[in-house]
Structure formats: C-alpha cells, structure tokens
C-alpha cells in the first residue's frame, strides 16, 4: 500500500467510521455498560455489522479461521495470524481501530455465545469457588485502561537477518502489536469474590479455544490494578477474534498471557506449569540455561521497540517529508527516541507527541529532506527506566523478544 492511499475513498470512510465509533463510545459515558449489554446480547449481529463495513466486501463463513475481514491492504497474511501493516497507522490517532488490530490465534477463533458462556474460578488458592455468567461480569466494578498487547514473537523475522537462521513460528516484522482502550473488571475483584487466600501463588487463565491456552501468571501480576478481565475494546464489545466474550489483559506481559476466550481461572497455592510455560514462551538457545521444569527462562515482560509508519521496503517521493513512528516499552513511558537515516552513522532526536501513556506507546516524528536513493531508517527508544533498544539480541529457537534496532528499507524516488 502506498503512503498516500489514505486518500482512497473507502479507506477514508473507514477512518471516519472508526473515529465516529470512538467518539460515540466516549459520549456514552456511564451508560456504556448498558450499551455493552445490549450489544453483547446480539453479538453475532455485531460481528455481522463489522463484516458489513469490511474492505473488499468479503464475508466470513463459520469455517473461517478468523471472523473479521483481513484484506491484504490491511494485514500480512499468516493464516490464523494477521500482522498489522504499519503504514495504515500513518495519520491515525493514538489507538488502533479494532478492524486493523493484529490477530494472533493459536488455532482458530472460537464462536462463543455470551448467553451460555461461564467463567469458573477454582483451585486451592480460593476458598469460595465461583461460576460467573457474562451478566455477572458486567455487573462488577468497571475500569478502562489504554494499553498495548503485543505477541511475544513480534519481530521474529529479524532473527534470520541477524543470525542466518529462522526461529520457529510466524515470521512477523513489527506489526504484531496494537494499542486499544480495554474495558473490564479488575481481575483482583473476581479473585476477591472467590475468597482469594493469602497463600495463593499462581493464577492460570484457560482459554476456550481448540488448544486450550493455559498460561499461568504470578499472583502479583494478577493483582495489579490494570490486570483485567476485559469485555470491551475501544468502546465496543470485544470482537470474536480478540477474545469475545471475555479475555485477560496483562499489560506489558507477552501476548500469550492476555488469554483470549477465557473460561476458567485456576488459582493455586502451588506454582503451576503447563507446556505454555515450560516448552513454549520460554527462551531456548545457547545464551539461555534451562530453568527446570522449563526449558529456559520463562517470558513475562515484553521489551521496548520502535516502528516506522512507513511501508516496509516502500517508496516515497523526494522532498521534505515528515516521517512518523511509534515506540513502546513494558517498563514505563518512552522518554527518548533517536533516529538515523544514514544506516546508524549519525543519530538525531525525534519529537515525541502526547499522549505518552506507560505500557501503551508514544507517537514521534521528524522532518527529513529526502533525496533520491535507497535508505535504511533506524529508530531506537529509551524508556523512563533507562532501558534502551540494544544493537543485538541473542538468538532463541522460538524467536521471542527481538527488540534490537533494525533497518527499515525505504526508497526515495526522484
């Protein structure tokens, strides 16, 4: 997609529709919960509405891996995984619209009815096991936060360029991330109602998808203010591909901890282990020692990264250009972004734009007198904890946490 494709009428209208939905959701204010209840009771209808506003007019059949339309001008296609094309964020606001948000499905999107869905809360770490309906969840204290969700393997494809061998899994560039406003109930509210014991140690959300994603988290993470059971995304009921009816939000942690379609919470007084924290989502490689029973250090937080809102290996006309991008960190606000247009020989500081929300991202830009030629743009972010993107990242077999500074190929034409 070319940089100026935002002039395309369909995309322009889509952008306006996104903005309208966003403003309407905000205007709903305190009545949002009621809005969500009404909308959720017709979840299939909501999904159909999303389809109706799709690019290419494509329709999703129940057999499809993913419910929402994922046209190639919006996403790179990896079957059940769809990578956001960064150039579509150029000129957009802070949030990623639901339609453009990347999808990471371990198998396929399950179609779940809110009316029959239940959340079980059980295990040795609670004294009053619970079973909650969707309406029960909606009746609990509500909070909204703006945070990013990012796949543990975002940037995986760059291991091949750095080491000459591929790491296993989807060969993402940098589009397996998105920032949204997530609305739901703090997880600790639910755990408290189940009689959370002082001795509880781990919480394991379990997904209702075909592979039953089971990714334990520490009780400390589960009790953080912004760890939520989410039922709305950017003011709309959570779309099926993003976890309808309810998903976990574990800000700053690798995407898999944000379990979608959650149906059970096991709360344990003992550490919990599944293949999802012993064999996968662990660092395996010559620089990482096993941590039995895990094959390597278990992933928790993501890592600071930066991306340009420019087509990958794309073209721009020569002249004065405003180059934009975004940077993010799981550890706090981004305080500095440096850029280089000469393959890392010289670096300047980009201008950061508000808002700059911790565990979300910051937008930045710089002016560039672009002359014809081939370029490799670089950006490196530093967060308020002093974490800066490194020059290299050790190889790991499953391709996680690649956050080294990379060259973004770009041609400036006369």
């Amino acid at each position, binding site marked *: 997609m070319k940089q100026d494709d935002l002039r395309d009428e369909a995309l322009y209208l889509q952008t306006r529709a996104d903005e309208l939905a966003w403003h309407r959701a905000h205007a709903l204010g305190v009545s949002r919960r009621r809005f969500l209840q009404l909308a959720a009771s017709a979840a299939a209808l909501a999904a159909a509405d999303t389809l109706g506003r799709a690019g290419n007019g494509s329709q999703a059949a129940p057999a499809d*891996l993913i419910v929402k339309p994922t046209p190639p001008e919006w996403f790179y296609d*990896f*079957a*059940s*995984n769809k990578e956001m094309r960064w150039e579509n964020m150029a000129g957009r606001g802070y949030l990623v619209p639901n339609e453009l948000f990347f999808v990471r*499905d*371990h*198998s*396929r999107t399950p179609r779940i009815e809110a009316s029959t869905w239940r959340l079980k809360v059980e295990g040795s770490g609670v004294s009053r096991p619970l079973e909650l309906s969707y309406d029960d969840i909606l009746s609990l204290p509500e909070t909204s936060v703006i945070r990013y969700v990012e796949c543990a393997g975002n940037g995986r494809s760059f291991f091949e360029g750095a080491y000459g*061998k*591929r*790491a*296993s*899994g*989807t*060969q993402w560039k940098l589009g397996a991330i998105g920032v949204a406003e997530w609305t739901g109930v703090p997880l600790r509210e639910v755990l408290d109602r189940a009689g959370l014991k002082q001795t509880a140690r781990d919480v394991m959300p379990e997904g209702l998808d*075909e*592979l*039953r*994603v089971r990714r334990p988290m520490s009780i400390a993470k589960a009790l953080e203010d912004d760890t939520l059971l989410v039922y709305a995304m950017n003011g709309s009921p959570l779309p099926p591909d993003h976890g309808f009816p309810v998903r976990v939000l574990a800000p700053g942690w690798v995407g*898999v901890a944000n379990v979608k379609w959650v149906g059970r919470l096991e709360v344990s007084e003992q550490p919990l282990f599944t*293949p*999802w924290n012993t*064999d*996968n*989502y662990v660092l395996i490689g010559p620089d990482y020692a096993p941590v039995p029973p895990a094959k390597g250090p278990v992933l928790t937080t993501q890592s600071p990264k930066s991306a340009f809102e420019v087509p990958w290996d794309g073209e721009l006309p020569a002249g004065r250009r405003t180059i934009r991008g975004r940077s993010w960190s799981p550890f706090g606000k981004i305080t500095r972004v440096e850029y280089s247009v000469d393959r890392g020989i010289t670096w300047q500081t980009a201008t950061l734009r508000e808002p700059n929300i911790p565990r979300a991202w910051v937008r930045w830009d710089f002016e560039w007198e672009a002359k014809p030629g081939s370029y490799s743009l670089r950006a490196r972010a530093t967060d308020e904890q002093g974490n800066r993107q490194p020059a290299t990242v050790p190889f790991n*077999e*499953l*391709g996680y946490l690649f956050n080294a500074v990379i060259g973004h190929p770009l041609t400036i034409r006369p």
Partner: protein
Amino acid sequence: MGLALSPRWGTAAAPRIVKVKAFEFAYEPKQITVPPGAVEFDVTNTGSIEHTFLIDDPAKKTVGKIASILPGKTEKLTVTLRAGAHTIYCDLAGHREAGMIASLKVQP
C-alpha cells in the same frame, strides 16, 4: 501406518526423499523408517494454520528444523541421520501436545 523407504534408482549419492503431510494436529505418516545417511524431507502443510517440523535425535538434540510452513506450502529439509530412535514434532505452542509428533526410526 508406517513407511519404509528404498533407495531412489540411479541417484545413489542423492538423499532419500520422504514426503510428509503436516496438519491440525498430526503428521502423516506417523511412523517413518529410513536407513542411516542423507534424507530429504518434503513437508507439505495440508492444514489451515502454520506448522513447523523438527527432528530430535535419540539424545533429544535437534538435528534439523523447518521453522515455518504456511498452509498449502511445501518446505524441504535435508539431514544426515545416524541409527537410532528419532522424534519428529511441531514446536509451535500447543501443537505437540495436541498430537503433532511422529516416530522416525533410523536403522540399517
């Protein structure tokens, strides 16, 4: 169902070729027997989602890997195998647990 291979005629120096299907959530065939030496695995993803293909030797050391096979694609891997019981599996999250594992016997 097993698969035993004979040498390919007229190409004594060329690796033997083993064709494998990968899908949700199994490999076909599930049991493969080959003699020691070079083997080329042609792995076709006949499923709907992405898969990988790894071979671990009897000491559980990975001796070959296809890091990504998208649906409808065929990827090739050539490895030189020693005698022993090897394991084929997919290392994507949840896939091995769901059944993507196969036996590879290397015997003279």
